[in-house]
């Protein structure tokens, strides 16, 4: 048996967990709260990854005065050297691209999905699904981003640290911090008047329109935030694996994220994160088992999705609303009705008390 690097396993799991948790949380905002079936999540994930790769490599190469095309071998070789020289530059470029990928993915999400909202929900799903796939095909043929080969040599923000363990530890902590911040933002967003309005739109779009809600505008807002968050996930992925190509962004990614959301519970941010945790754990664990016990009769990688499918079926059988079902949105307004709530409880007890006495009488024999 080969020595197994437990901490390395945990770091890799946590990083993938953060990336997918951000994705499933953003999908949950769109599907679970605003009721828009977004089957094109991967497009915005890809946009985030490509924006960060393109911008970071361009900045490094142009600062060094090198004029190679980004996809060339020379550029990749130069990046290996350049990325270890200036720690401040690495970190500031990382922060810059995080913001840029959020804004660009958000803006594209807003622009592309806004017109499709006027058609029915089914058409909306199909339209964004094909947008994701078209974007991938476009990238496969787009020379400046390396066509099928993609871009290699994305400067890791901590590339200047020689110890690989410390480097990975730092990066994983940063991704976990980003996940926490986004989770807090999402929690506050849904437990606010905006979250309430989103839920109302999911429940009944026509009624929301009748009650004076500007439905397309609210949906546009949600799409901006959702797509922007997916862009951030893409940015983290690009820096983590250091090399991206169009074939990472196949539609399957979208459906993985849907599976996470359904498993965890639609309409609950915590559920989206728990779902992402479980599925990425199975994903990483099957890879690790194959690594620890090579030459098994059945390669666990091949039955990975069967295991995930089984988990989903079992969970939905016993908890149809997912592991953590949806709750009411909580705003400070609930404090006002606490006395009413207690009064209702007292009244219920008073109503029930004769029955209780009666049952006692029967049971105790008077």
């Amino acid at each position: 048996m080969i020595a197994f690097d437990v901490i390395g396993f945990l770091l890799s799991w946590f990083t993938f967990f953060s990336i997918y948790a951000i994705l499933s949380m953003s999908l949950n905002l769109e599907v679970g709260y605003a009721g828009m079936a977004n089957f094109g999540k991967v497009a915005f994930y890809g946009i985030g990854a490509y924006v960060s790769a393109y911008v970071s490599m361009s900045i490094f190469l142009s600062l060094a005065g090198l004029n190679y095309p980004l996809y060339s071998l020379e550029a990749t070789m130069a990046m290996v050297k350049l990325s270890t020289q200036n720690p401040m530059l690495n970190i500031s470029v990382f922060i810059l691209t995080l913001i840029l990928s959020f804004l660009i993915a958000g803006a594209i999400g807003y622009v592309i999905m806004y017109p499709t909202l006027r058609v029915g929900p089914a058409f909306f799903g199909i339209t964004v699904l094909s947008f994701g796939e078209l974007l991938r095909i476009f990238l496969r043929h787009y020379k400046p981003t390396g066509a099928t080969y993609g871009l290699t040599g994305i400067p890791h923000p901590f590339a200047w640290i020689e110890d690989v363990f410390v480097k990975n530890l730092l990066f994983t902590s940063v991704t976990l911090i980003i996940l926490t911040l986004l989770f807090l933002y999402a929690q506050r967003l849904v437990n606010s008047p905006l979250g309430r309005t989103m839920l109302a739109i999911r429940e009944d779009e026509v009624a929301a329109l009748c009650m004076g809600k500007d439905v397309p505008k609210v949906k546009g807002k949600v799409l901006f935030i959702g797509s922007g968050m997916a862009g951030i996930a893409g940015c983290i992925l690009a820096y983590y694996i250091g090399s991206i190509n169009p074939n990472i962004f196949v539609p399957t990614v979208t459906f993985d994220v849907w599976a996470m959301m359904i498993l965890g519970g639609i309409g609950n941010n915590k559920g989206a994160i728990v779902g992402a945790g479980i599925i990425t754990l199975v994903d990483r664990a099957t890879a690790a088992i194959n690594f620890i016990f090579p030459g098994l009769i059945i390669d666990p990688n091949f039955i990975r999705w069967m295991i995930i499918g089984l988990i989903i079926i079992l969970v939905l059988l016993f908890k149809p609303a997912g592991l953590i079902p949806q709750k009411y949105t909580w705003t400070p307004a609930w404090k006002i009705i606490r006395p009413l709530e207690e009064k209702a409880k007292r009244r219920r007890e008073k109503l029930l008390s004769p029955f209780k006495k009666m049952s006692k009488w029967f049971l105790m024999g008077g």
Partner: protein
Amino acid sequence: MAPILKVVNVTKYFGGVRALEDVSLEVKKGAMVGLIGPNGSGKTTLFNVITGFYPPDRGEVYFKGRRIDGLNPNEIFKMGLVRTFQNPRLFFNMSVWENMLVIPQDQKGESLLKAPFTRLWLNEEMEIARKASSLLKDFGLEDFVINKVSDLSGAHIKLLESARGLMGKGEMFLLDEPAAGVAYTDAHKIFSFIRRLRDEYGLTFFIIEHRIEVLMDYVEYVYVLHNGRLLSQGTPEEVMRDPKVIHAYIGE
């Protein structure tokens, strides 16, 4: 008194089907007006045209002296014209409390930047909550605040729909069968409640109802639609005696 709602020569066709033809009517401020007619006579279509769901093919709609045909439903709601649906369209998987709070227009907390910061919208939210809790008490729904709407009974859902309408700046209500599917005594309860609301809050009601015998006890004026045309109008007594109306309802 000047009419709060004025419909002038409204015509609406669906393909070749005539849904409304040259319908003109007026509702005075503070009045309770009924709209009756056999099934398929165009009552709900008229409501849909007034509230902006369909644009009329011809004709004009005025609310508070402003022309509203062609505006979006949400804009018309903001002006104070509220409608209810034949099948109540509440947000069924949300609590009664949320159903009330979600209604007021342009809340500060609905902005993307302000929503995460509770302090920025706390005052407004508490004001809305106080209004909602006093309305729920008025409507006798205070015991159900934390319940899901789908757990309520039919009559309570009807009441909640009206209470919800009052959360906005509703001045006039178009009620589509407020007592459909409700027992006879409860129907009277709902209508006397509507009358009390009219007297207390100074609201205007325009009501579609199939239970003519209940409706006639409460409204001051009735319009009768038949096959998309205005067949008759007048006080309840006049309309009930009109041979055309009797003919339309009972037949030969």
